[in-house]
Structure formats: C-alpha cells, structure tokens
C-alpha cells in the first residue's frame, strides 16, 4: 500500500493542516466576519468557529481511524458500497478542485491588485499552477517537507508584521465586550467557516501518518494555531481600523499593514512581506487541495497519478476563471464555506455512526 518512507510524521501532519487552513482567510476574515457580527466581539466568533471546526475535524479523524491505512476514497466504498461510495468521493474531489481553483483565483486577484496591475490574470496564474504541479508530483512527503519550510517563515513574519502595527492599535475600538449580547456573535460563525477550511484533509492524511493514533492531537493543534493567528489578526485589524472601517475595506489585513511606515529601517513598508507570506500560504493550500483531488481520482479510477495531475490543471484553471468579477469570487468562497457543513460535518458524522452501528450489530 503506502511505502513506509512515504509516510509523514506527526509534526508534518500538523503543519499540513495549519498551512491548508491559513489561506484566503488571512486577508478577508476580518471583513467577512465583521460584516455579519457588526460588533467588536468578532474575536469570540473566530474562536467559536475554530472550536466547531475542531469538533468536525475530530469526527473526521475518528472516522478515518476506523479504517487504518485507507483514504476516504477507499473506505467510503467499503462502508456504503461501490456506487454510493464513488459518488461521495467524487463530491469530495469536486470540493477539493473548487477549493484549489478558488485559491488560485483569489491569489491572482490580490496579486493583480497590489503587485502587478496590468499583467493579465492568465500570466499570473499559469506559472503558479505549474510550480504547484511540480511539487505535487513529489508526493505527500515532498509536500509535507515544503510546508515545513513555509510554515515557520509565515509564523515569524506574520507575527512580526502584526506587532509592528501596534502603533495604530486603540483598545477603545475593541470595546465594549459583548455590548449587544451573544446573538450577533453566534450569527457570525458561518462566515468564519470559510477561513477554517482545511482540517478535511485529515480524511486522507490519517492514512499517510506514521502514528495514526495521534491524529486527534494533530487536528487540535493544527486548528488551534491558525485560530490564534486569526484572533490576533482580527484584534489587531479592528483595533487599528475600527469596526466601521474594517467593513468597507476589501482586503483589511493588507490595509492594516499599509497604514503605517517605519522610517529609518531598510524597509519602511511591510505589506510586501505580508503579501509574500500570503502567496506562499495560498500556494500551500492550492497544492494540498490539488494533491487531494488528484489522489482521489487516481485511487478511484486507478489511473497514474502523474497523468491525473496534468488532466486536472485545465479543469482547475477553468474553475478559477469562471468568476466574472470579485463579487462572484467571494460568492464562490461562501459556497465553499457552506458546503463544509454538509461534506465535512454532516457526512463524516453519518458515516461514523453508520460504521459504529454496523460494528455493534455484527
């Protein structure tokens, strides 16, 4: 089945989950969540959203642990029969394809807006996807190693840059706490879910782990790290730009970093660093969802992995380009967030119960 050298360590699994989660959300989460919550208590919403995601992830892990060494694509056929299993697998493959298309497109949009104003989208997208393809060919282990490079860089610079914005921070912007009660906080949770897409990779990843028993630990740590990231981010952004300001900014996180200059240092302006680490993060998310989709197709139809990689490229590209404007792109993002509820909370729970019941019967 899976060769022992292809297996990944627990740390690598954590890093994969974290890197998958941290993506588009870094730039848009403050706005999307504030839009729904409308009070400075967004950080509570972000924590709650994370907790819900952890619960969903634990369910997925428990499900996968029932079938050691097998990915979702393999065991779903075992649980529900070949045809239903295949249907569900294809749904999930479609999900991963859409996610990777979404990531590519939002990367292209932001790059086009902030870095390369008159460069056509296709020119931005293509080399990015090709490098992704090159990495995907290396298999899960190579991907994991790449993520281990990306992760500490992100962690370091992200925190550094956010701390620099402390000059603009005003605690009054975050007060009062729970002034309108808990209802608006709860209302915002669905909006934060998109920022937390990522733990679903555990449906496949458990099969590749050296120690599958530690998978629960993996998802908890892997989700809590981005959760802390997000809380920190939301607090800093709202603290500097205030609730009213955040709502009207399309990319509030970048605006935060663009709002100050540190004169006297080599760099006065740090949005470039934020954009660099953000593009790296998007790359990570794109690669892992691309890998998940190609692995699914390869396992489902028994085609060579490399060929699937090539075939998926144009499909992802077309999905990425299907949004005609930025509103449709955000709508696509919301769709992904909404589909999470069914695909990765409802479905695994149902499958887990089904397996347990059947196990009890026999």
């Amino acid at each position, binding site marked *: 089945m899976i060769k022992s050298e292809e297996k990944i360590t627990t740390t690598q699994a954590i890093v994969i989950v974290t890197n998958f989660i941290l993506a588009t959300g870094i730039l848009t989460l403050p706005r999307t969540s504030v839009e729904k919550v409308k009070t400075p208590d967004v950080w509570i919403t972000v924590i709650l959203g994370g907790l819900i995601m952890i619960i969903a992830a634990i369910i997925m892990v428990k499900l996968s642990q029932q079938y050691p060494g097998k990915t979702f694509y393999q065991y779903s056929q075992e649980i529900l029969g070949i045809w239903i299993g295949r249907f569900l697998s294809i749904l999930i493959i479609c999900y991963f394809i859409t996610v990777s298309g979404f990531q590519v497109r939002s990367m292209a949009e932001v790059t086009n807006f902030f870095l390369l104003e008159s460069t056509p989208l296709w020119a931005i997208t293509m*080399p990015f996807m*090709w490098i992704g393809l*090159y990495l995907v060919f290396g298999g899960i282990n190579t991907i994991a190693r*790449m993520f*281990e490079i990306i992760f500490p860089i992100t962690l370091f610079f992200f925190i550094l840059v956010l701390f620099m914005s402390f000059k603009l921070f005003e605690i009054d912007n975050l007060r009062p706490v729970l002034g309108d009660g808990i209802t608006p906080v709860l209302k915002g949770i669905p909006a934060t879910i998109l920022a937390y897409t990522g733990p679903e990779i555990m449906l496949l990843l458990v099969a590749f782990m050296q120690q599958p028993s530690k998978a629960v630990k993996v998802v908890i740590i892997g989700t809590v790290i981005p959760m802390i990231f997000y809380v920190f981010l939301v607090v800093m952004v709202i603290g500097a730009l205030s609730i009213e300001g955040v709502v009207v900014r399309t990319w509030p996180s970048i605006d935060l970093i663009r709002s100050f200059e540190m004169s006297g240092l080599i*760099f*006065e302006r740090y949005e*470039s660093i934020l954009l660099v680490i953000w593009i790296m993060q998007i790359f990570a998310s794109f690669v892992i969802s691309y890998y998940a989709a190609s692995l699914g197709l390869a396992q489902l139809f028994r085609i060579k992995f490399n060929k699937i990689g090539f075939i998926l490229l144009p499909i992802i590209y077309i999905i990425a380009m299907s949004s005609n404007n930025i509103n449709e792109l955000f709508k696509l993002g919301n769709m992904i967030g909404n589909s999470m509820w069914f695909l990765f909370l409802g479905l695994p729970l149902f499958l887990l119960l089904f397996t347990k019941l059947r196990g009890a019967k026999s």
Partner: protein
Amino acid sequence: MWKTIASFLPDWLIIIQSLIIFLIPYFIWRFFIYIRERANIATIKQESENSQENTCNFTGNLNSDLKFIKKEIGHNSDVHFREFNIGNTGIHAVIIFIEGLSDKDLIDKYIMKSLMIDFSNENISAFMTEEGFNNIIKQQVLSISDVTNTQNLNDLVMKVLQGSTALYIDGSADVFILGTTKGKTRSIEEPISEALVRGPRVGFTEKLSENTAILRQQGNIKSLSFIKFQVGKRGNKDLVVAYIKDLANPDLIHEIEKRIKKIDIDYLPESGYVEQLIEDNYLSIFPQLQSTERPDRVISALMEGRVAILLDGTPFALIAPVTFSMLLQSPEDYYERWIPSTLIRLLRFLAAFIALLVPALYISFISFQPGLIPTKLAISIVGSREGVPFTVLLEALIMEVSIEILREAGLRLPKPIGPAMGIVGGLIIGEAAVNAGIVSPIMVIVVALTAISSFAIPEYNAGISLRVLRFMAMFCAAIFGLYGVILFCLFLCSHLVKLKSFGIPYASPAVPFNLNDWKDFIIRVPLMMMKRRPKMMKTKNSIRQK
C-alpha cells in the same frame, strides 16, 4: 435559465488558455522523460560494447610470451626489457619495467642482485617442481614487500604501466609483479581552495595511498574501513570508499557501492567525474556530493556516519550524502567557540540570501513595485538613475556579467597580477561606468555586494550554483516583479525538498523538521550539547559523547 448557465460557461479564450496550461508542462515533462531515457539507452549500449574483453593467459614459454608482451607494450621507448639468467642455474628470466616510474635502485639492489649474484645453489634442488620454485623465489630470494602473481597479459601490462616491475621466469606461467613504484608526488601542503585561519594545515595530495595514509594518521580510528574499487575501462584507476564500519549505515554503503560499480567510462581524470556519474539528479543545479581537500573535514564527516570517496590522481575527496546546510558550513565553525561560530553561520546564510536574491529584489522594486521602498530611498534612486539609458534588467546584467568575467579572468591570470587586475577591473570599470552614465551608482553597490556575498560561501561549487540561480531570479523578477521572485523561491524550495542525496532529503535538517539536528544547522550549539550524531544519517551508533 440558459442565460444564467451561459454566464458561467467559460469563454473560448479561457479554454485555449486552459489548453496551454496543460500543454506546456506536459511537453516539458515529456522532454525530461525523453532526456532520461536517452541517457539510459546510452549506458546500456556502452555496457554491451565493453563486455567483450580479451583474456590472454601466459603459456610458460618465455620466448613466445615475451613476443606477446613486446607486441603489446614493446614499442614504447620507456619500457625496458632486461633479460638475464638466474644465478648460475641457466634459467632464463626477464624483468620488465618502465623508466622513471620504477625505482631503479630497488630493482638493481634487491631484485637483480639477489637473483643473479646472491642466488645460492642450495636452492637448485627445489627447482624441480614449479610450486617449489615459486615459493623459493618469493620466500628466500626477493627481498621486497609487495609481491603478487598474475597469469594474465592485460594484468601485467596494467601493472607495469603503473610502475611495478614484472619478473618472468622461463618455465612458469605465473609472473611476479613486484611493487617498485616510485611515482612522482608532491609534498603535503595547505589546501589552497579551502584555507582556514584555524585548523590543520594538511591537504590531500594526488596520490591515493598517501591520502588514505593521511586519513589513518589524522583519524587514528580502529574501525576506519577502506574499500578499493577499480574504475575506468581504459585508464584503470583506484578508487577508495572510506567509512567507519560501526557508524555508517550499511544501506548507504551498499547504495554507494552499487553506484560506483555502475560507473562505466573510459577514464576518470578527477573526482568531479565520479561526482557527476553517481549523483542522484544530474539535472539539478545543486552539488549533491561535497568535494574537499581537507582531511579533517573528511574525518568529521565520517564521524557523522557519512562516506568519503577518494580517487587516485586528485586531491579532492568526495563526501556523501550531502545536505544543503553543509554547503554553508566550514570546519572552522567547530574549531572556534560556539557564539562567534553561530554568528558567522548566520552571516553566511545572510550572504547566501544576498547573493541569490538582492539583484532580483532590486529589479522588482525599481521597475515593478516602487511603492515598497522607503520614500527617501526611492527619491535618491530616481536621482541616480536619471540619465541611465538602459532598463534595470539590462543594467544589472551588464554589471553582473562583467563581474563574472572579471572573476573568471582573475582565475586565469598569473598570481602576481591577479589581485592588481581585480582592483583595476572592479574599481575602474565601476567608477568609469557610473561616470559615463551607463549604470547608476546604486546598481554598482548592489552588484558589488552580491559578488562579495557569493564569495563568503565556503563551498566553491555551492557559490557557483547560487550565482547561476541569481541570474534566473533576475529574469523572473524582470517578468513578474516581486511576484516573480516569490515564484522563483517557491520553485527553488520545491526543487530542494524533492532532491535527495543518497536517500537523505537534501533540505534536511531544516525539513523534515528535526530539532536534534537543528543544533548544528543555522546555529551551532556548544559542543557539550551535541551529544548525538545527526539523526538524519540513521547511524548505527548515535551517541557521540555521554
């Protein structure tokens, strides 16, 4: 209804683009597969050619065999045939040696003299059997330590050409090969390519036996093992694989042996040939074996469970497997105290970063993202670039290429004028180019900084790789600006993590993350804390000190 669906259908332009996005990588992929296949076909062909070898054995008849030998090497002016009779037995014998390569004193005193004059008649009785004869010559007559036998013409020729003396005694097909080699060697000197302030002043020489001796001497390690191989089909050369028996991972040694045995080439002039023939990925730009002239470096690598490959005729030993971090480390890091060593290592990483990316970043900031540099710097750059007729890329290329030319020329120049020419070239060209308005002064600073940084890297060949990559980065930056630089970094990282050197991930110990190995990566912790050998090497015995 149809309209809403239609609005989501992709434009025909996007379909064409999606085809392009598929075709380009697909063709690149096919292309690389094609290259690899061709390389494989070539080696297979060679193997079949070389499998037929003439094995010609001696008959025992001196006259006929001598004719054979003379036909093979007799036309050479430096090959000497000296025919004589052993003692007063009347048995005909001949010695064959090469002028200059063999020790004539040794031949005269201990071979000729003992065979012709000191040969006592008591031994004659034992001459009856062939075995007895050989034994007596070997055990009682020849006072020489290195004596072997051969019955094969090729073997004889090979040995004689290396400086041994062949002794053919009529009536015996077993020819003695006497080790009388007196090759020209130079004295042991300080390695030029890897000079250190502190550390042993010993470097390898061109002679394999001397090199192994140095290793023994330096290391004084009981379990230090040498395996000898013969490489090169036409020009036979000795190659030694050195490792420490109770440390090195047997899989690793097995893999290296396998690859060395696969070497199938006429002649190996330098260990660079070996390096290129056994490395994992010859399409990669990174050196996958480390070459060094320093025995101390080899020993400490062996102590980490690595393997060294020494080739006769070159002072450069190879160390495998190698990781990227090793290319930025110097033995001095361990000889000096840990705080300065750590800081110097950090400095080298910074230098590598500068050497790789600074011109690219400069290009992208100047021509794509002027908003990302400080206002005052932007203003002064604008002021300095006023009147420069070229685009930034071209300007950077002009300067970078001229620096590379200067460097290359500096290597060729005779030693006394080298530094002078460097100064003349660097200063005058830089200063004059700025005054002439061809390049801006800031560009000169950038280029000079990168050039110096690339020389701060202790491994010469790693420096070359970085220099080549720098040009790639510059082109990426010229197309996509900062985004291009990011893409370049992502591609480079992807390549680095994919690359393996003899089964060890090239990017280790950074990834796969291993806290224990980080003690000797970017930082160097005090020696007291380095209690274990690198985990990535999977050594047999991991404890260095208790």
